[in-house]
Structure formats: structure tokens, C-alpha cells
């Protein structure tokens, strides 16, 4: 099998950071957006959309591509320009996922893997009982494991504790476009885990990305929201801006919620009014 060496890609001009960078397992990333490579109308649209998204990390399903493409493989198109993160999409058992990760390591010469172990093919929800032992085995084997998990704080914490340098809880089922169904759990995961949190799955449109970042996620992985959009390239740009907006809002510190209004111009000393509180 042909080896596609993964060198650290140079940082293109279109990734001038508006927001601060992200570090996972000692590696710095200029963009907090991770983007998938499936379901685009065609490869050219995929390339243009990924470029417009500003993402540095692109994920590739190892089960769905062959490296010896005979023509022009995904790795020919992406290698050297992006950080390729192989994933184990399509694996239903720990054994399957571990083998797929090992295949990816051999073929792509990378220790990084986004670990997916699916438990149900209607919802594509992760199978925690399979995921945890698979993550443990891969961590022990020297992999840098980024696990796709449920939005369950206990699972996320266990994955962190066993050595995953980031966790990737879902916002909603893969491809559903329903956004973040349980923002409270994402907040709890944020508070319980110290490793980066990458929200993975469920994004339907740009505002979902902003919400994830405002909740304190360190990054977002998405695919369908861009690939299946009416105009994938402009949607890629939208999610990039949304991510930057959300991250900036999070680091800027939002104001507290209040039940009642608080006028933004000072009211003290206004003729005819004693004070704002008495006027109410």
C-alpha cells in the first residue's frame, strides 16, 4: 500500500487567526474548526469549501477510502495542505475500530485518530461500552485518541482520565442538523474536563457553531452542514465566521442574564425622574 506521509502543513494565509489557537497533545492548531470530507457534491467543491472554512484539520473515514486510488486520491488532494485526521467511521465494535486505527497509522504514518464506535445505525449514537475499551487500548498503543462520544459528562470524564487529549461530545445525531440538543450537558462537560472539548456532530447552520463556542467548547467538527448546504462554499465561510464570533464572545465574557431591563444610558439626573429604580 502506498504511504502518504503526513507532514505538518504550512499555515496558509487564509488562516490568519482572529481567535487564539488551539493546542491538543502538544500540537498547535491555527483554526478551531475541524471539517469532514464526505458528502460534498464533488471533490472540487470539497476543496473550495475546506479552503473557505479556514480549517486546518480535515477528517477522513478510513473505511470509505482506498489509498492506492489509481486516480487522484483524497490524500493526493489534501496531503501537505491540511492536517489529516483519520477516523473510524463505520466501525461497530471496539475490535473493528482498533484495527481501523492501526491501518490508518500504517498507511498515513500518523498516531492521531478520531475514534468512532457506533452503537446503532438509525441514530449513529456512540456505543460507550465499546468506545471506552477501544480508547484505552489505542492510548496504551501510543495513539493520540480523539473519541467521538455522547454528550454525557461521565463518559467524557472517563475518556479524559484514560488518556485522551481531547474529547468530542455530540451536539445531536450525525447529519441531523439539529444543533446542540443539551447545552447544559455540554457546559457540565466543559466544567468537568480539563482537556479540549471539540463539539462533534449535529451542527445544522452557522449559529449552532457560535452556540457551541459560547458554551466553552474549544472547537467544532462538522461535515454535513457544509457539504449538503445549498451553497457549500459560502456556508463554509459562514461557519468559519460563526466560530470566530463564538470564540471571541466566550473569551470576552458575556454579561449576566437579567430578568428586567437595565437601560444602557445613565438615567440618574434625568429631569423629571428620581431614579431608574423608582421609575419602575
Amino acid at each position, binding site marked *: 500500500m502506498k504511504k502518504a506521509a503526513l507532514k505538518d502543513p504550512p499555515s496558509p494565509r487564509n488562516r490568519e487567526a482572529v481567535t487564539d489557537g488551539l493546542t491538543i497533545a502538544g500540537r498547535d492548531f491555527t483554526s478551531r474548526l475541524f471539517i469532514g470530507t464526505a458528502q460534498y*457534491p*464533488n*471533490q*472540487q467543491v470539497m476543496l473550495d469549501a475546506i479552503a473557505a472554512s479556514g480549517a486546518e484539520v480535515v477528517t477522513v473515514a478510513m473505511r*470509505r477510502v*482506498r489509498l492506492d486510488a*489509481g*486516480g*487522484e486520491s483524497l490524500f493526493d*488532494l489534501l496531503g501537505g495542505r491540511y492536517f489529516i485526521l483519520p477516523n473510524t467511521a463505520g466501525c461497530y465494535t471496539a475490535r473493528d475500530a482498533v484495527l481501523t486505527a492501526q491501518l490508518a497509522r500504517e498507511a498515513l504514518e500518523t498516531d492521531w485518530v478520531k475514534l468512532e464506535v457506533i452503537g446503532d445505525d438509525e441514530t449513529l449514537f456512540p456505543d460507550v461500552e465499546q468506545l471506552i475499551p477501544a480508547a484505552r487500548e489505542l492510548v496504551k498503543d501510543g495513539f493520540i485518541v480523539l473519541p467521538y462520544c455522547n454528550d454525557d459528562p461521565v463518559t467524557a470524564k472517563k475518556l479524559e482520565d484514560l488518556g485522551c487529549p481531547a474529547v468530542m461530545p455530540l451536539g445531536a445525531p450525525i447529519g441531523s442538523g439539529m444543533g446542540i440538543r443539551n447545552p447544559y450537558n455540554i457546559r457540565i462537560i466543559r466544567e468537568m474536563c480539563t482537556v479540549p472539548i471539540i463539539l462533534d456532530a449535529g451542527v445544522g447552520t452557522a449559529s449552532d457553531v457560535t452556540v457551541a463556542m459560547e458554551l466553552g467548547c474549544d472547537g467544532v467538527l462538522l461535515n454535513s452542514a457544509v457539504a449538503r448546504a445549498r451553497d457549500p462554499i459560502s456556508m463554509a465561510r459562514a461557519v468559519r465566521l460563526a466560530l470566530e464570533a463564538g470564540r471571541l464572545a466566550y473569551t470576552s465574557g458575556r454579561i449576566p442574564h437579567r430578568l428586567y431591563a437595565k437601560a444602557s444610558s445613565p438615567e440618574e439626573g434625568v429631569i423629571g425622574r428620581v431614579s431608574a429604580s423608582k421609575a419602575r
Partner: protein
Amino acid sequence: MIVIVGGGISGLAIGWYLARAGRAVSVFERDAAGRGATWAAAGMLAAHVEAEPGEERLLPLLLESRAMWAEFGRDLEAASGLAVDYRDEGTLVVALDRDDTERLKFSYDYHRSMGLEMEWLSGAEARRLEPHLASGVAAGVFSPLDHQVDNRKVVVALKAAFVKAGGALREHAEVEEILVEGGAVRGVLVGGERVEAEAVVIAAGAWSRNLKGLPDHLRPPVRPVKGQMLSLVMPADAPLLRHVVWGPGTCLVPRKDGRLFVGATVEEMSFDTNMTAGGVYDLLRRAWETLPGIYDLPIDEMWAGLRPTSRDDAPLLGPVSGTLTGAGEVVGEAAGLIMATGHHRNGILLAPITARAISHYILTGELGEDIKPFAPTRFAA
């Protein structure tokens, strides 16, 4: 002499047009002619239902070629004396549940915004058109202009028409090298023998990128995209379908002879053409969900083919570099080298326009406006 590399539908159709115009043409095919992607296809001429966001530039070409198809088919039948089984009942797309319906609505809105003639149907209306559809069909879209043709009969007819018109068909004759010398293509090497030509047309489908002799930077960005399919046998006196039907993850194509084609997987698997358990399972499960009546039908055949897919899913049509005049004058880096490849899933649909545009260019040196957006050079970084 014009040499065409590849005896699939594109190569043979171009060859037929050129031979008919009195030019000396040889088609070289490494296997049996028409037995590659052309044979594996389903013959859907579905310019409307296949139109998808991001491929707006391709749509006019698909529409123009589809408009040519009925007449192209009649001409071919007349020239070859063989039937091609063109069917014009139209195509029905169905949704089986709420999520499918949302997705169908999304694409219907898109198709309507592109001005395509399509009709939204309730589940009951869809089942009136095709009573054997699953009782749970929730909605449908009828596309009256998306017809079908028997692609295997087409390519058999094309072979006959090409040879009758005086073309030379060399099967089991692999082109070992494209000869590019002094800025122009000079011919090909076949069986160690040099065949001189003033123009060479690359119509080698998924294999186009790997032909020897092409300078690296002129290799077309075309890759194989695997599709598994199978066919079932419907009762001849009571076919389950008349229209082409698209359900979630399935295409069902009823042939005049009673066979029902079930397609197709879309896989990035290089040149692998194995049938897989998962592939066949998915084909049958999805087909059964849309058309439960297939359960007892005998399986006729199963096969896998390789779509020749370009980076933007649109074909590469026209000269690679330099210019070729009608007088055979050539100027440029590989003048006289012409591409007609990378048709992805649209090879059958695009055959008429491919034949017309490429033969017109070779005969006159003029490049039609319709194929200008599909220059093989458009991918240069």
C-alpha cells in the same frame, strides 16, 4: 487518421460521428468494446433529478444532451438496425418517512429554483403512478423529462453503426503509449506497433489518468468511483414498475425485457470491482424498503463498474493544449491530444453531446460554446 483510446460509449459515439463524416478512425479498446462503465451503467437520462447544488455549471450540458437523446437514439437505431429501447415514462422520486420528505423538499425546492419541470406528489399520488411502491411512501416528485435507455443495447448498436460507417474497431488491443513528440501528439503504440495519427482522443474512462506517454501535468484528474449493481427479473406480463424510481439510497430501473436494475453504491475503492456482502445487502435492503414486491424476484445478475470521475464530477471535453486546425495543423505542447473522459455518472446521458462536440472540433477546429466550460485544462492550479 484519428485514433480514439477507449471503446466505451463516448469513444464509439465520437468514432461513429467521425466515420460518418468520412474520416479515417480507429478505436482501440483494451478489453471488449462497451464492457466497462458503459455496460455497468443503468441508462438513466436523469438530468433533472441528478442536478444538485454546487454543480450548476454542469446542468446546461446535461439538459442539452438529454434534449438530443431521443433523436440520437432514433439515428442510431436507423444506422445500426438495432433497437436501443428508449423509454419516456419519466422518473419518480419517493420519500418513505418524514426525514426523507424534508430532504426531498429541499431538493425539489432547489430543482424548481433552477427552473426544472418537476411535480410534487402526495404519497397516495405517487402510489397511483406506481401501485407496487411501499405503502409507507410519504411523498414523491415526478420528473416527466428524465427518461431512460438500455445502455447495453446502445453500445452494441454503436459498435455496429461505427463499423458500418467504415470505422476500424480494434478490441483487446491495449494502447501501450500515447506518442507525444515535438509539441504534438503523433499517434499511439499498440502491440509494439506505431499507429500514426493527427489527433488522439482519450476516452478511456477511469483508466484515462494512467495511460503511458502523457506528460504528468497533462494527466486528467479522473479517478474510478466504484458502483455495485444487480438486476432482478420481474414477471414479463406484470412488471412491478413502469417509471424509473428513486427511493432513499436506491434507483430502480425497469427494462422493456422485464429486468429490474437496482443501483448503485458509490465507493472510493480504486480499481476494485468485487461485489461485497455489505454492498449487496444495502442494494437489496433499500430496494425492498421502496418496492417490497421485489422479495420473491429471481436475481439475474450482479456486477460492479467504475465511474470515471473527475475532480468536479463534470467531463473533460476538448483539446488538452495547443490547437488543432481543420487542415490538421498543430501547434502547442501536446497539440492534437483531445480529452473526452471524466463523465462520472453521466456517460450515457452525455454521449450525444460528447459525440457532437468532439467530432465537430476535430472536423472543423472550432470549439463549441457548450463545451468551453469543460476544458481539460480547467484544473490547473
